[in-house]
């Protein structure tokens, strides 16, 4: 039995993590520049003492920070003392912990320690990290937090035993095959997001690169150059995505306890994040055409605070499991029978025509070439996609507000109306002229908007949602 009431320090290894965090806060690109500056700059011989002294200072500061950081659990309050010069005292009632993530990064794995991230409130940034503690301590902390929440739930909520929190049911578990399918069918450009920071870093000290960028000779360009480059980029992106998904979502598992959901995944660094089911505000799914062929979808469970659960590559049965866990029936049971006014097709086409027309005119004037008119193809494309969007858009209002749409990719979103934090009915000039309006249900974690519906209908939806939020006594967070 681990007694959390004793004031504890983290493992001394936390010094390393604290130092690394400080370095990371300075910024990787900036660090690279500093290192380049030190190696190639005026620092030589005796001046090398300066960076050495800085490193020493960093070590000392991190060590003091580690020594001053203690935590203990007294009377169901988690008390954290920290601060190098100041004495900061953080008190968090344990039943107010919204999510508690236990992670194991590479360095943790070697040493058998874990990192705990505690998120306390949605509206504030009240969050702190315990960098390195033994796994049993973290598990005890997690157990206490979950137990506190169960005990906190209204009496007779169907949850009898706090001990039940230990019996978690596996809802989703991805094997290698599924992960491979998920990675390959993910949006073909998704892999390129990895390149973002890389390109930024290159840009930072691109001047230092020794090679001149290869210049493209106009004569060398043949007809297959452009499609070839696109193909190579796509293949590259798919490979990157494969790597990303395998690193991030390896062994993706979603488990449900009586009051909480827990997602674990990761190859090198294992991430575990848990969130209480009551705090789930919004569930959305997305599916691109490739995924449709494979019968897979990406699901995001949005919760108050940082406990959002992102699940890639779920099949229909998985989605039903996740929905059941947050208290909803299968998606096919949603009526999703209401539509929106087609006026949006005209509006979008008109606006696009104006913008693109001006752009084409300007381009034509600048280049003096009739080819500028080519950009006008955007107009029929916009017309076609909006028309498809309007035709396939469905929504419904039951005890949840739900919407689904499909142009090429499809997406759905659903929120329980009693969790509404606010409702807005709005009318643009265009909508007003046609007696139309938009209604937006805002939760504490994202919102759902239905546009281009009759004003009377929007107001009725608002009245139903507000009534539910004010009379339904089920917990909303």
């Amino acid at each position, binding site marked *: 039995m681990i007694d959390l009431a004793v004031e504890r320090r983290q493992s001394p290894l936390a010094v390393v993590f604290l130092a690394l965090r400080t370095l990371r806060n300075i910024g990787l690109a900036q660090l690279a520049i500093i290192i380049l500056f030190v190696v190639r700059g005026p620092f030589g011989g005796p001046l090398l003492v300066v960076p050495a002294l800085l490193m020493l200072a960093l070590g000392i500061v991190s060590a003091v920070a580690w020594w001053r950081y203690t935590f203990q659990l007294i009377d169901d309050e988690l008390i954290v003392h920290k601060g190098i010069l100041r004495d900061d005292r953080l008190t968090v*009632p344990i039943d107010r912990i919204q999510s508690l993530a236990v992670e194991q990064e590479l360095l943790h794995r070697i040493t058998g320690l874990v990192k705990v991230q505690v998120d306390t409130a949605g509206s504030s940034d009240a969050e702190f990290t315990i960098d390195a503690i033994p796994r049993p301590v973290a598990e005890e902390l997690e157990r206490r937090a979950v137990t506190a929440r169960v005990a906190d739930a209204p009496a007779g909520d169907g949850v009898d035993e706090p001990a039940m929190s230990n019996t978690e049911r596996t809802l989703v578990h991805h094997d290698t095959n599924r992960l491979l399918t998920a990675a390959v069918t993910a949006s073909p450009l998704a892999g390129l997001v990895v390149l973002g920071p890389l390109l930024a870093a290159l840009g930072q000290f691109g001047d230092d690169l020794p090679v001149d960028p290869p210049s493209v000779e106009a004569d060398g360009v043949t007809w297959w150059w452009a499609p070839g480059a696109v193909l190579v980029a796509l293949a590259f992106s798919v490979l990157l995505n494969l790597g990303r998904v395998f690193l991030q979502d390896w062994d993706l598992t979603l488990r449900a306890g009586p009051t909480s959901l827990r997602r674990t995944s990761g190859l090198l660094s294992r991430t575990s994040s848990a969130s209480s089911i009551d705090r789930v505000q919004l569930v959305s799914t997305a599916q691109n055409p490739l995924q449709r062929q494979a019968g897979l979808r990406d699901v995001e469970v949005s919760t108050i605070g940082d406990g959002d659960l992102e699940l890639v590559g779920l099949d229909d049965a998985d989605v039903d499991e996740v929905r059941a866990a947050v208290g909803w029936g299968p998606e096919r049971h949603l009526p999703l029978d209401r539509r929106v006014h087609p006026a949006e097709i005209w509006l979008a086409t008109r606006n696009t025509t104006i913008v693109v027309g001006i752009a084409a005119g300007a381009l034509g004037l600048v280049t003096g070439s009739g080819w500028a008119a080519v950009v006008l193809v955007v107009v029929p494309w916009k017309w076609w996609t909006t028309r498809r969007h309007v035709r396939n858009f469905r929504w419904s209002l039951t005890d949840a507000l739900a919407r689904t749409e499909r142009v090429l990719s499809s997406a759905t979103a659903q929120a329980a109306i009693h969790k509404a934090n606010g409702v807005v009915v*709005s009318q643009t000039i265009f909508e007003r002229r046609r007696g139309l309006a938009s209604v937006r249900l805002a939760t*504490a974690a994202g919102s759902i908007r239905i546009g281009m519906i009759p004003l009377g209908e929007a107001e009725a939806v608002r009245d139903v949602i507000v009534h539910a939020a004010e009379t339904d006594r089920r917990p909303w967070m």
Partner: protein
Amino acid sequence: MVAFSNDPIPVDQLPRLRDDDFVAVDPRYLRGWLAGLALAAVVAVAVGSVVAAFVDQPLIPAAIAAVVLLGLAVAATLWVMELRRLGYQIREHDLSLRSGVIRHSVETLPFARVQHVNVTRGPVERLLGLATLDVSSAGPDITIPGLSEAEAARIKALVTERAGALEDDPHDDARDDACDDAHGDDPDVADDAS
């Protein structure tokens, strides 16, 4: 199970948010804005005439001043229209704000979701005896400008009291403490009151 029923309620029997129940904000708010715009117009004319007196082509500063005056006139018109629409409505369980000239909008925020209420008074507002009320939830916020000080304080007290009464969770004061402490930890997170 918690006693919870979910019988369908015909929509036409639900309490409606009626358009004529909105309360306008203090007229001093509009007057203040108009006075500000008038002041800007005077400054524009003054600067325009001074510059025109000293340059070779007096038409250019005159034209610029005219454009500025036109802009101010449009702004004044929009403000008059905006203030004609701007209004709030307090019901038993929620607070609504009607606003917007170009884009009409009616926001509604149930008291049970209110996280905190703030009254702010800028220097000009102090001069006019006005205040701005900020009502925040975990999701959207509602900001009502141009209330008289007494009115703002009254609504703030009402909302706080209603939000407290509707909260059936006995631990709620504990949560506020946690937030305060956590805020205190981070000097970068400025208090919303600023």
